[in-house]
């Protein structure tokens, strides 16, 4: 059985990542295939669903055919409108797209009904990216989705919220049926294909977040934090999912994590490794607000902006570099505090994965700022591992995805908060206060942007 290989796919915004794993959770191979985002208008973002299929084909041909099961987790709040044959009627509308204010499926359906009635008429199904891909791979007569991907459409029982769905005429019959995310829904090239779900849940299992109080930090382009709990005390700005195996996931994405670091490196005319090396030699200096694209969780403030506050002529690259890493950690601490409110439990440890977790320094800074251990998992692409564990579950190779996650996810290193850490509690309080103090400034700057950009 140890010889069985499973494929976990993370169908992301800029690339498809494919990881081949054995059942012990060891990564055998990894590949990444990028695809573009189209921005026909400044507030719009679209993608060609055919590009996802092409990337999947390339992944599979790279790894060969010897795969027992395939699991796919994908970007959420991205929507594909397909006809009765499963063919896309227009480019997918990405989660980043702001054409109708929000990114919910209801808002998107309303927009297509109003602005593109012909498309709406021809639409048989409204699908998430992974639902689109699995239905094409398995040639399903009727596509399938899951309750976690449809988190903003379902009631507490995990079924579609009838009243909400009825708010757009004809939407109810265009929604696929809901199945559990870890069941097989078809086959492709002799491999079982499981339902899969949204990418954050791949990270959950790939980070071994399986018990009440378990938490994760996925340090990618943005930071995604999640906390599992028996309880749910819904909090504004935090997504609380319907329970899986009796546990709610409370989660949220910030806007700029690794993106802030990459931006700063380009502003400083240095490479990211150079910036990280400089940060290692710096002591704390200014405070950095990482809201370079506005902020998502927990602030959900598109007008927020980034800032360096407290600059001194004594500061240079080391202090500013360090401030960037600290600023991202402050935003993570803020989000975690809100998750803890929603969950009614404190996270004792954060299991960390993602590209940002490769930096020892950044992990240590997060441990110091968040005042709790950061446990870095061995497989950085936790989303692929989680998807692979769902695949193994759906194929019957392991008894449950929870047990598989408990057994197969290995902690590579634990970063403990240091006794002599910088005065991060005070600095974090200042970080929170600075955002509030700058809100009127952000409002004025937003007004200036609207003056500058013609809206029609």
């Amino acid at each position, binding site marked *: 059985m140890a010889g069985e290989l499973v494929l976990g796919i993370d169908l992301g915004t800029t690339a498809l990542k494919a990881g081949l794993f054995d059942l012990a959770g060891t990564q055998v191979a990894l590949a990444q295939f990028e695809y573009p985002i189209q921005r026909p208008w400044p507030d719009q973002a679209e993608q060609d669903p055919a590009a996802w299929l092409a990337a999947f084909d390339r992944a599979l041909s790279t790894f060969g055919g010897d795969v027992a099961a395939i699991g796919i987790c994908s970007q959420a709040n991205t929507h594909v409108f397909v006809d009765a044959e499963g063919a896309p009627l227009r480019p997918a509308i990405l989660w980043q797209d702001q054409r109708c204010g929000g990114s919910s499926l209801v808002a998107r359906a309303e927009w297509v009904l109003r602005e593109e009635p012909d498309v709406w008429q021809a639409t048989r199904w409204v699908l998430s990216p992974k639902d689109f891909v699995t239905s094409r791979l398995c040639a399903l007569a009727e596509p399938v989705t899951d309750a976690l991907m449809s988190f903003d459409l379902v009631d507490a029982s995990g079924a579609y919220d009838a009243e909400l769905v009825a708010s757009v005429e004809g939407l109810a019959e265009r929604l696929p049926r809901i199945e559990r995310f870890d069941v097989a829904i078809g086959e492709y090239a002799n491999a079982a294909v499981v339902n899969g779900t949204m990418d954050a849940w791949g990270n959950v299992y790939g980070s071994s977040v399986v018990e009440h109080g378990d938490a994760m930090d996925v340090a990618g382009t943005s930071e995604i934090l999640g906390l599992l709990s028996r309880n749910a005390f819904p909090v504004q700005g935090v997504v609380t999912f319907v329970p899986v195996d009796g546990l709610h996931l409370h989660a949220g994405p910030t806007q700029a994590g690794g993106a802030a670091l990459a931006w700063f490196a380009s502003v*400083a005319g*240095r490479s990211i490794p150079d910036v990280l090396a400089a940060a290692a030699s710096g002591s704390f200096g200014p*405070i950095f607000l990482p809201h370079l694209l506005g902020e998502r969780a927990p602030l959900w403030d598109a007008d927020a902006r980034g800032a360096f506050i407290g600059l001194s002529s004594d500061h240079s690259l080391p202090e500013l570099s360090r401030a960037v890493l600290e600023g991202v950690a402050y935003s993570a601490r803020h989000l975690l505090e809100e998750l803890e409110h929603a969950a009614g439990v404190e996270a004792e440890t954060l299991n960390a994965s993602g590209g940002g977790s490769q930096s020892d320094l950044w992990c240590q800074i997060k441990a110091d700022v968040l005042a709790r251990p950061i446990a870095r998992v061995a497989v950085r692409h936790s989303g692929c591992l989680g998807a692979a564990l769902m695949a193994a579950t759906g194929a019957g190779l392991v008894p449950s995805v929870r047990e598989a996650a408990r057994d197969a996810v290995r902690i590579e290193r634990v970063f403990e908060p240091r006794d002599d850490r910088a005065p991060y509690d005070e*600095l974090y309080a*200042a970080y929170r206060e600075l955002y509030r103090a*700058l809100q009127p400034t952000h409002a*004025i*700057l937003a007004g*200036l942007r609207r003056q500058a950009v013609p809206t029609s």
Partner: protein
Amino acid sequence: MFLGIDIGTSSSKATVADELGTLVATATRPHTTASPRPGWFEHDAEETWWRDLVALTREVLATVPASAIRAVCVSGIGPCALVADEQGWPLRAAILYGIDSRAEREIEELTDALGAETVIRRTGNRLTTQAVGPKLLWIARHEPGVWARARRWYCASNWLVGRLTGEYVIDHYSGSTSDPLYDLGARDWWPDAWDACAATLDRPRLAWPGDIVGEVHTAAAETTGLRAGTPVLAGTIDAMAEAYSAGCRDVGDTMVMYGSTLFFIQTVAQPVAHDGLWAGSGRAPGTYSVAAGMSSAGLLIDWFAGLAHEEVDALALEAAAVPAGSDGLVVLPYFAGERTPIFDPRARGCCIGLTLRHGPAHLFRSALEGVAMGIRHNFEAMGEAGATPARLVAVGGGTRGGLWTRITSDVTGLPQDLPTETIGAAYGDARMAADAMGIDTSGWNPVADRVEPDPAHAPLYDQLYGVYRRSYVALRDDLHLLSQLSGG
């Protein structure tokens, strides 16, 4: 011909000009500033000031005969605290102007002793590290042996005048910036202040910077090569001489000096009372001055270039192509705290409004704009005090390339004149010497160019200036906290 000599912080300069203002000879001599402890800055008067004067004079006299020098004028850094015996011999190194912050405790004590409001009413200024009185008090307290022998107090220029002529005299401008010793309304010493911090010292005679106060005596003539009997002016502090060199003559004329820091000085008709500015006497009888200074200017430009890992000139070219307003960035330039008009040593710099679209050229331009906002803030303070600048004259290294001055004019809505010569205070000294000998110098150093504001940018800059002002008020407490957490 006329000899001007200026003693700066890091170098001294001599200039010889003829009756038409044409440069005949110049010489420069670098020197070092001692910093025996953090926050202490000193010059050895004999080794630095006198030696520079002698060497520079001998250097220019190699090309100009001593007999051709009709008068000499000296300016220098100030206000300083140099204590000397009854012959004028220094008893310790001179403590320099506002960069020396050793007397913080004495500033508070003296303010309490004299009364904060009384100090402002009498001198036009609050006591800061720039003040002389607290430094004298510091010497009295920490060096009682020195203080017991001290009979005289000097700045740089009047000590050199004393060395050349034997006179114990100081100009009104130097006196009026040596707080709290000078009563601005009375245009005379303030006896209560002398009693409070320098009771045992003799007070120097007051003269106007352009007055002839003596002549080169025989011993000084032998050392310097100057002709004995050459008339010597009272001279003044370098800033005033620099403004005059650039052509700031009339009431309302305002010099903007774009250096590593920014300095402004305007000639006004009435004493100015504003607790965010420096008030002083004027260059000529019947005039006063109002001055202002920002802690970071050119320093900031270099800092941003360093961060971007680029040369200043290359970055300035890119920044010129960035739209006005830097696509929504605002910089508070308080990277080294700030002097006027907020007098907040614990303020710190900010870079607000950052997005992924901003690159190094945006940040660089926003730094220039931030300094320009600070300039506008100072001009507004002058306006509140009834002294709106009538004409701006821009000098200093920061005028090179033109981008910074253009941004300043756009942000302030004011044109700026650029003089032909920008060689500095020593040229102003030479001009004062020529005036004293009855020469009409009105044709000296004509305006070479004028920077005009572009009204198209005014609405945007007005709004960003509002953001600039509001942001400091909103962030002040946090900036103080950050400066405290990082140990000063």
